[in-house]
């Protein structure tokens, strides 16, 4: 067709299309798009959400658009005609294709066929025997030319007590094409920055960076206007997308979007494209109306209970051991030691409080025990614990308590107040990964409050934790009930060393969960070198050694520690990858807000376990309650979906969900009863079998009774 005739034809087509007013779906005698409404259910059960979908079938070569159409085009729209008491969810957009048009025009859309799904929630009571679902659909379909189309789509469904699935193939096909939430842990590999001209998305994950078909499909929110994402290699083997912008508010630091690779996609950003990204939260969960005093009291009690947490056991036992030795000392000295120990506890908590306030002021999202989400902190902890253990084993003795290097180890210098102080610090460091009962709500309250309240809250916790020691040392009479010191103490000391080694195993396991097995082995290699250095100190740095010999040994020790630290931690450990979610038990589903919504939408009860590899309270609850045969059976009988939110690497999506519950740390246990998913039950932080079984029983009958 020559240009003139083509124009004439287009103008004729336009003229033919226009006067009618209705936006024709026929072009050149063909119906370009067939639109219909389908549902995943054979009938409507009052109160029970289901999924409906607008099915668009395009003729070959023509496309409709994604929610962000790209440089041109407009997304498909649906306007529902439903009674007010129906709830309509957002459109769940399948992963689109990126299509290039002449002149460097990029658009995002769908060829052939697309199902735009969304959740509909009918009211609890429906009058009549059937319901007509009706909506106005508007779309733009383009090949080389664009033709807007619109149509009224409708679907009649009977109202019923129960319903069977419908259109399973189509829904399965397009559910499969929905973007997934970013895997737990992967978010650590993703970072954003922006300058005056562009957003920069950096993906540190090497395995992703190696994919040539990795792409970023942006979802800018109005009024942000962006150009095309461009990919480039980033430092350290990662990859980087630069998204130039034409306009973006200074407050906008990141873009939502999809990370697309191998036909799969992950949602990035605060607003996942599928849902509104929130979990139903019980009313009052974030209620801050409780008085400050009440929460401070909770903090105090929580701090006290921290002493009983399994993580603190080795150090606490050592402290009691210290008290035994001090039993014969003067009253003043004993109290001095108790005071020093308490000061250590206060020092750590106040340090944490200041760090928290500082980070919060700098705009970071702060969560409790956040330091454990930093692998380097865990490495440092491992080193301290090992050196401590070697000291207890007698591999080396602290001979120069005044030397700076002996700092934390000074505790074994029997009399040192400094030793007691560092013991206090050490006990607290080990205690932080366990959020004791009361601490969860108290910290949740404090972290959302002003700097002063945060400080007060940490003081209350420190006071609670140190209270028993202060009381015990202030009343030395009570110490009489402890056994007398003697040679047996050496054996106890060595045994405590093994407890510390057990703690070390736990820390290594945490590292493995955070950064994979390679991280464990490189840390272990560093720890081995550290052990040798400790042994050298014990074997060669004897009090009578000559100055030259001491110098040589010291240099060798330094070389060993610094060299291995530089190589194993600085070089090898640093480049290990963030590990994916570690779901050891297959009957747990990985948490995502979308998955939770969809399980609840399908009428399932859901038990949500917020956990982390480094959270001992969580592990204790899992081992002693959740993974026991009777509880597992009860879950199965009640038909409750078990969902695990692994917060080991401080996944921001999980952080956000925790915050919705007014929490800043794990564990958190939430039961969503199927009959009443908007009233989830928050379980206490220390679980017992009876408690869980009772809750399952009270939740389950509601499930059965649900319409």
């Amino acid at each position: 067709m020559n240009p003139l005739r083509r124009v004439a034809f287009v103008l004729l087509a336009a003229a033919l299309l226009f006067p009618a007013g209705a936006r024709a779906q026929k072009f050149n005698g063909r119906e370009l798009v067939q639109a219909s409404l389908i549902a995943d259910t054979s009938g409507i059960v009052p109160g029970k959400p289901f999924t409906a979908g607008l099915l668009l079938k395009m003729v070959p070569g023509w496309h409709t658009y994604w929610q962000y159409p790209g440089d041109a085009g407009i997304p498909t729209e649906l306007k529902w005609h439903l009674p007010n008491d129906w709830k309509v969810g957002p459109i769940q957009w399948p992963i689109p294709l990126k299509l290039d048009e002449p002149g460097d025009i990029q658009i995002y859309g769908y060829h052939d066929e697309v199902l735009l799904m969304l959740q509909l929630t009918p009211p609890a009571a429906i009058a009549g025997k059937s319901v007509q679902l009706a909506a106005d659909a508007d779309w733009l379909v383009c090949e080389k030319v664009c033709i807007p189309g619109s149509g009224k789509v409708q679907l009649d469904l009977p109202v019923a007590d129960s319903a069977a699935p419908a259109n399973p193939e189509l829904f399965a096909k397009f559910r499969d094409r929905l973007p997934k939430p970013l895997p737990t842990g992967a978010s650590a590999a993703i970072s954003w920055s922006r300058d005056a001209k562009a957003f920069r998305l950096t993906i540190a994950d090497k395995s992703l960076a190696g994919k040539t078909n990795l792409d970023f499909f942006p979802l800018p929110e109005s009024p942000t206007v962006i150009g095309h994402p461009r990919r480039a290699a980033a430092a350290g083997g990662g990859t980087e997308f630069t998204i130039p912008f034409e306009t973006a508010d200074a407050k906008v630091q990141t873009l939502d979007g999809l990370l697309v690779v191998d036909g799969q996609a992950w949602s990035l950003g605060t607003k996942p494209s599928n849902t509104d990204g929130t979990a139903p939260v019980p009313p009052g969960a974030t209620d801050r109306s409780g008085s400050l005093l009440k929460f401070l009291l909770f903090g105090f009690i929580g701090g006290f209970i921290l002493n009983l947490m399994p993580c603190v056991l080795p150090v606490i036992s050592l402290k009691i051991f210290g008290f035994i030795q001090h039993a014969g000392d003067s009253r003043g000295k004993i109290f001095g030691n108790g005071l020093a120990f308490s000061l250590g506890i206060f020092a750590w908590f106040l340090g944490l409080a200041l760090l928290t306030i500082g980070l919060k002021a700098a705009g970071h999202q702060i969560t409790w025990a956040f330091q454990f989400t930093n692998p380097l902190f865990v490495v440092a902890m491992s080193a301290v614990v090992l050196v401590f253990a070697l000291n207890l084993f007698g591999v080396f003795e602290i001979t120069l308590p005044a030397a700076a290097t002996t700092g934390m180890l000074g505790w074994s210098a029997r009399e040192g107040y400094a030793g007691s102080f560092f013991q206090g610090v050490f006990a607290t460091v080990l205690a932080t990964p366990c959020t004791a009962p009361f601490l969860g709500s108290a910290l949740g309250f404090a972290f959302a409050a002003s700097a002063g309240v945060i400080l007060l809250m940490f003081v209350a916790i420190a006071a609670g934790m140190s209270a028993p020691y202060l009381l015990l040392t202030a009343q030395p009479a009570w110490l009489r009930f402890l056994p007398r010191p003697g040679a047996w103490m050496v054996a106890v000391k060595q045994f405590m060393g093994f407890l510390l080694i057990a703690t070390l195993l736990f820390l290594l396991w945490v590292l493995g969960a955070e950064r994979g097995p390679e991280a464990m082995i490189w840390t272990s290699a560093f720890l081995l070198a550290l052990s040798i250095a400790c042994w050298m100190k014990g074997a060669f740095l004897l009090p009578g050694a000559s100055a030259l010999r001491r110098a040589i040994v010291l240099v060798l020790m330094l070389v060993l520690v610094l060299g291995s630290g530089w190589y194993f931690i600085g070089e090898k450990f640093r480049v290990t990858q963030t590990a994916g979610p570690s779901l050891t038990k297959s009957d747990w589903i990985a948490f995502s807000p979308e998955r939770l919504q969809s399980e609840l939408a399908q009428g399932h009860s859901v038990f949500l376990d917020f956990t982390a590899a480094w959270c001992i309270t969580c592990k204790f609850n899992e081992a002693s309650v959740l993974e026991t045969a009777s509880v597992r059976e009860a879950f199965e009988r009640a038909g409750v979906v078990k969902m695990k939110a692994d917060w080991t690497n401080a996944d921001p999506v999980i952080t956000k969900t925790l915050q919705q519950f007014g929490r800043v740390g794990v564990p958190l246990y939430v039961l969503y009863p199927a009959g009443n998913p908007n009233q989830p039950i928050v379980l206490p932080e220390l679980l017992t079998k009876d408690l869980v079984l009772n809750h399952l029983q009270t939740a389950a009958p509601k499930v059965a009774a649900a319409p």
Partner: protein
Amino acid sequence: MKTKLLFTTLTLLCTGALFAAESPQVGAPAPGFSLPSAQGKTESLGAHKGKYVVLEWFNPGCPFVQKHYQSENMQALQKEFTKKGVVWLTIDSSAPGEEGNLSAADGLKQINDWKMYPTALLLDADGKVGHEYGATNTPHMFIIDPDGKLIYKGAIDSKASADQADIKGATNYVKAALTEAMAGKPVENATTKAYGCSVKYAP
């Protein structure tokens, strides 16, 4: 033949990328150009220095362009502002053989049929000026101030649809920007996301 095709494709890709990188943002000087008009003259941007200039990317086959012409929304805007001394240049960057490509005669007929009121309808069949400005949509609107600086880039209005009924409730960004600028005020929405058909550049 094959290598030539490959070479052409590569060149196009490269120039495309170049254009994308260099297309002017609001606040930057508007690139100069000179194009033949349907009226048989040559219009250059430089000749209009000292006046506000509106660039409107155009394709009569595009339903979004039709939306604003069938409703006479665009003509009303052209009338209002050309009367106030604004230079309104409607630019057609459709390539030969693509939808909306116009000869000078087609263009004159189009102006007559639709009762268009631009200062001139410019023919940019090789898409050079379209690329230079990063025009991706029809309609895609640009406003240049008397100093030759770009002060608006984006959509015609705030409702991205092909439905004439939506014009009434929409904010017309071009009208708002011109009104603000001519009153000596800063343009509030200076960059917006254009909507419409893609410009039909040469494949």
